[in-house]
């Protein structure tokens, strides 16, 4: 599978602050790639560099095979971009906004536009400045989907939206994402989990890991070990064990390279005899909390 986005050692410094510290990213074409991480991790900066809104301090980025510094003019006709903090022309009415965007895109699909207007229940006669935040995001999304972009870039699109609007946006997005690559940044893991195919975790400007969501969920397990007597916690243990904790005769940790046989063997090697072993699947939120608390990526 070819890549829709590739970055190589991307660095962005704002005076003394390093927002991106050597970002290496590879987003497969056709993926729904979620770039997640805490606030200030550098997600928005990365997206702005990909969209040629900002210039990187060093490193390279390619978007749809084009150097990101050349993403301008006609190149943007195949990229849809929606951001939580984008300034729209407030004085325009919603309908005028879509009509204004139309001639910029040779591939604009009027039927799709009308379909999105209906689906999002957009009030075309109201000025953008009078619309709610959710409605503005819907307008922005409709204005970014109606021309069948090859790449849809969404920067924190769901922040501050009520669940109903979020579901509507996701539904609208997924219905049209089959033919496109979606690159979305978020710190709301619950939504991402429901539709992302790939995930990257960014922290302090570094990509801690990047992989398919299914394999990520597959390799993380919450492990609970029950012993006959309270065991001693080992001095050395596998690097993939995170948040090791003991409570009386129960030991819990998060395994980041889960494999039933190998993990079981590793446990026996460290603790010896174990009365009971439980391996529970984890939600994305639990995985990231574990990683954030441990302060390391999924090695």
């Amino acid at each position, binding site marked *: 599978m070819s890549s829709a986005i590739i970055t190589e050692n991307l660095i962005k410094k704002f005076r003394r602050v390093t927002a991106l510290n050597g970002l290496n990213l590879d987003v497969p074409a056709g993926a729904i790639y979620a770039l997640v991480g805490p606030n200030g991790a550098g997600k928005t900066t990365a997206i702005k560099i990909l969209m040629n809104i900002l210039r990187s301090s060093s490193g390279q980025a390619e978007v749809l095979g084009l150097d990101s510094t050349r993403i301008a003019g006609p190149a943007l006709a195949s990229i849809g971009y929606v951001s939580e903090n984008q*300034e729209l022309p407030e*004085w325009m009415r919603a309908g005028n906004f879509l009509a*204004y965007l139309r001639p910029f895109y040779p591939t604009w699909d009027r039927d799709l536009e009308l379909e999105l207007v209906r689906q999002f229940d957009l009030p075309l006669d109201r000025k953008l400045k009078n619309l709610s935040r959710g409605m503005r995001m819907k307008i922005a999304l409709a204005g970014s989907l109606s021309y069948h972009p090859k790449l849809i870039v969404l920067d924190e699109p769901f922040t501050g939206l009520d669940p109903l609007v979020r579901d509507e946006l996701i539904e609208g997005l997924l219905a049209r994402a089959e033919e496109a690559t979606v690159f979305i940044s978020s710190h709301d893991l619950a939504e991402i989990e429901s539709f992302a195919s790939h995930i990257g975790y960014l922290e302090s400007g570094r990509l801690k890991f990047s992989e398919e969501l299914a394999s990520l969920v597959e390799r993380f397990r919450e492990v609970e070990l029950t012993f006959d007597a309270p065991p001693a916690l080992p001095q050395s243990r596998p690097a993939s064990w995170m948040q090791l904790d003991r409570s009386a005769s129960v030991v819990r940790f998060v395994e980041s390279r889960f494999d039933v046989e190998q993990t079981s063997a590793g446990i026996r090697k460290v603790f010896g005899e174990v009365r009971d072993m439980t391996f529970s699947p984890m939600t994305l939120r639990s995985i990231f909390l574990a990683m954030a608390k441990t302060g390391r990526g999924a090695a």
Partner: protein
Amino acid sequence: MKQILHILRKDLRHYWPEALAALAALCAYVWFQIRTWNRPLESWPGITGRYLEGATDLLLPLAWWFLVIRIIQGETSVGDRQFWVTRPYEWEKLLAAKVIFVLLTVNVPFFFMQAALLAYEGFNPIHHLPGLLWLQLFPLFLTLPVAALATVTSSLVRTVLAILAVVLYLIAGAVLSSEIPSSSFSSETDSLQAILFLATCVFVILWQYSKRRTNQSRLAIVALAAIIVLILVATPYRKLVARSYPLLQPPDTQLQFALLPPPKSSGSEDLPDRDEKVTVALPLSVSGVKEQSILKIRGVLLEIEASNGRRWDSGWTSLYQTLFSNRHRVVVSLEIPKKEYDAIKSGIVNGSLSLAMETLRDTEVQRFVAAEGEFALPGAPFCSANWGFAREIHCRAPLRDPYWLLTTDTSESTCPLGEDESRPKAGTLAHAWVGSPGSETPDFDFNPVRFFDFSAWSDEDSGGTERDPGICAGTPFTLSKPQPERRFQEELEFKQLAIDDYRTRMGRFTFGRIRR
């Protein structure tokens, strides 16, 4: 082209109130112009009307600036949140749309306004089409700097603050310039500064639209400001003056200057000091100005060495004195800082007085007689010698002031003499200059109709308050086009001079005559 028109349509729909405001300012300007034009002073509207007329002169560029700032910041280049930067805008087309918008809302109304004003005053606009088109550069030059500032600021308020900063910079520059000797006289670097200024404005606009590198663009503006200060401070003005006005020695020049003794000072009082400066007036006798030749003294440099060893020089200072062949005396006035003056005034001084001069040769002399009513002069189709109570020729011309020197023998004036007036002796010439030699391009102004007066002043120092008889219907006069011949400087050395004798005092010197 499709995208250009699309953006243009959007802007016209959104910014029509601003465009309408600019049009209203233009209409107000026209209304006040035609109301006050071509009317004698006494029939002008009241003081309020005159202030309003002045206000429209200011209102028009302000309305244009406002419009330009708004239109540029509709798709601001500053920041990283504007929606348009992630849409398939092509910067050349966006810029073209903005330029066309300005042409449509500023230049087109301005063009028709100018054509209408020309027609109103009896000039066929079709005959002056090239000049009218040339004048379209005027609003562009006027709005270009503001456009550059608008591209590097994110809001109207910030742009206004930037404009205020520029105004403060200009004031500081003027103050600095006044402190640098000879800088106000030499204009050798003016064109360089103007080119740098325009080039920076164009660069900033293009850079912002093509790259949106705001910090670099702002840096370019700051660099321009620094370079202009550097040019101001580091220019070797004296060398430039020496190059423009090479020093001549006899026999290269027939001119002879001599310092005349100061007038008697009995009963005179010192003039009050102005800005801690003392004015000295050095009377010079002049001889050797050829017939048909005119000598213009452009600048003066006074260097003094006092007996106590103290030195001072004025730097080159602009002077506007014109000498015709029949004039033999000129007074050169200079200001000396009071501190310096007090240090040297009690003793005698040695030094030199350098004069930067230009000779002109009188050409294309034509004779006329002022007619009753309206009459035509070359380059000024509508002239009148009966302009209210003024005894002068009042003309209007299309697009630019023609270049003429008017000469009249005041003894041949047909104007009635007042009770306390006597007819001057024959051969007492009076002159009036209009326009300037060289460029034939129209003068940059809002108003394409040029109004000017041939207000003739006699050459001789009458020493009193006697008024010239003036020019009335029937008065003969000549018009000529003196052409610059050469520039040079002469140095006049003086020794054992009591400078305090030349200090300007009450009742000592009268420059020119009191008229009206």
